[in-house]
């Protein structure tokens, strides 16, 4: 069930350039299930900035009623969020949307992420591993300074890093890595910029894949029709990223 809760900030720290890791605590965590779901965060009590910010759930700690977000502080909303300190409260609406269907993976999965699309893959990797699925992580970042969670992913499986400027790992995009790797997986999961999602889909036309999309949002719950995408399933309808997605099977979204 979707809840709105003032959650307590447990910890916040910078973990890469402009990238923050924020852990909050509260009953809302009970409702979280699928990796790839997101929350809609109100960064200030005032109406300026007005809109909530959609942020993926990066990891869930049910035992302690906590979950973690990883986000880039760039615009004014996320910058305000980055100022929150342990003990502060933030207004969280969630969990929202449909995440990655972990039950679809059989033996081995590729998790392909780019930039701030990487965070939801972490909870996904955890859940897949706990189901005995082998996970291979192919993660793209701008540069060495922008990389986060390399160790955490390595602890869960093979991890390949690409940086656009070549300052760490393979130079270029995740697709450069994909070209080198054997296609010995049954399912892939991907989250990142739309161009990356497109490239990934083209790379594996025969594979089962799930992609997480981004769109500008209003309500975050399916009521305002802000976050729509055209779909191959219907000429006369859109799908909504917030409530039908953000994760869709490969081939469904026209971006």
């Amino acid at each position: 069930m979707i809840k709105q809760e003032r959650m307590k900030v447990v910890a916040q720290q910078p973990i890469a350039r402009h990238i923050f890791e924020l852990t909050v605590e509260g009953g809302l965590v009970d409702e979280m299930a699928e990796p790839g779901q997101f929350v809609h965060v109100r960064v200030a009590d005032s109406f300026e900035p007005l809109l909530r910010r959609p942020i993926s759930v990066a990891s869930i700690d049910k035992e302690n009623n906590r979950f973690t977000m990883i986000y880039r502080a760039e615009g004014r909303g996320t910058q305000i969020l980055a100022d929150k300190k342990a003990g502060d409260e933030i207004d969280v609406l969630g969990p929202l949307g449909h995440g990655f269907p972990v039950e679809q993976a059989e033996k081995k999965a590729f998790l392909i992420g780019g930039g701030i699309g990487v965070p939801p893959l972490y909870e996904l990797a955890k859940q897949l591993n706990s189901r005995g699925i082998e996970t291979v992580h192919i993660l793209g970042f701008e540069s060495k300074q922008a990389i986060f969670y390399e160790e955490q992913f390595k602890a869960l499986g093979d991890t390949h890093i690409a940086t656009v400027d070549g300052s760490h790992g393979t130079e270029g995009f995740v697709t450069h890595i994909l070209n080198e790797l054997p296609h010995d997986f049954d399912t892939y999961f991907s989250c990142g910029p739309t161009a990356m999602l497109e490239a990934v889909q083209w790379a594996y036309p025969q594979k089962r894949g799930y992609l997480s999309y981004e769109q500008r949002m209003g309500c975050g719950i399916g009521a305002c029709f802000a976050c729509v995408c055209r779909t191959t399933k219907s000429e006369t309808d859109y799908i909504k990223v917030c409530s039908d997605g953000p994760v869709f099977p490969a081939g469904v979204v026209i971006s």
Partner: protein
Amino acid sequence: MIDLTVKIPGLELKNPIMPASGCFGFGKEYAQLYDLSQLGAIMIKATTVETRLGNPTPRVAETSSGMLNAIGLQNPGLEGVYHSELPWLEQFDVPIIANVAGTTTEDYVDVAQEISKAPNVHALEINISCPNVKKGGITFGTDPAVARELTRAVKEVSSVPVYIKLSPNVTDIVSIAKAVEEGGADGITMINTLLGMRLDPKTGRPVIANITGGLSGPAIKPVALRMVYEVSKQTNLPIIGMGGVTDVDDVIDFLSAGASAVAVGTANFVNPFVCPEIIGKLPERLHELGYDSLEELIGRSHRL
């Protein structure tokens, strides 16, 4: 006990608070969060004759204390709304105000005639003010004579009272209000969004794919309040006021300025519980202000 009820044509509201059209879909999503029967009414998303896909994305952009939207009246069309959305809403004890849009008079007439037959539709809201569609929409809302004739045509076919939704993007909103009054409107809803634009300073490109969008939220409240005040002063039609309402004191302001009921739009996105929360706070706030009923408060700014 403070009396929150309001009676306006077609509508016996248990309280004056309702979500504004386009900000609440057809209720399904918010029904996951609270019981919609708490609401005074629901203004559903604009309905057109045919299914409409609306505009390309991005469709929303944030601005200072406000947002722009250019959804473009996406909706499942009259058929879908009549046969699936409205029946679903019947489970709640809440009157529905159906928002009607179109590009020609015939469109409006067709939708109005049909949709007003739905048992839970207690009033129509004729959207002559949508800034986000190329044809129709706002043009009906900017010329008094056109607005009057459209009102007449819709009144003729509607089985329920007709409220006309006015655009703020006009030189003289009172002249439009008077025209729809002449045309036989039962009430007015106001305001729709102000036409605005945001650019990306990095590229110079409009952030919204449609280039311009409708500005809503707290930023526009002063304009909305001024217009409600003026129209309430110069016409006799009941008004459902809106524009930037986020809390109980905003509701007090709109009622004071002459609105009989108040719609909440954008604030639903920020706080999805805003409507029931305001409804919960209204009795105490009225009591603090020294009023026993809501009706006493309506239009008090004009009586000072």
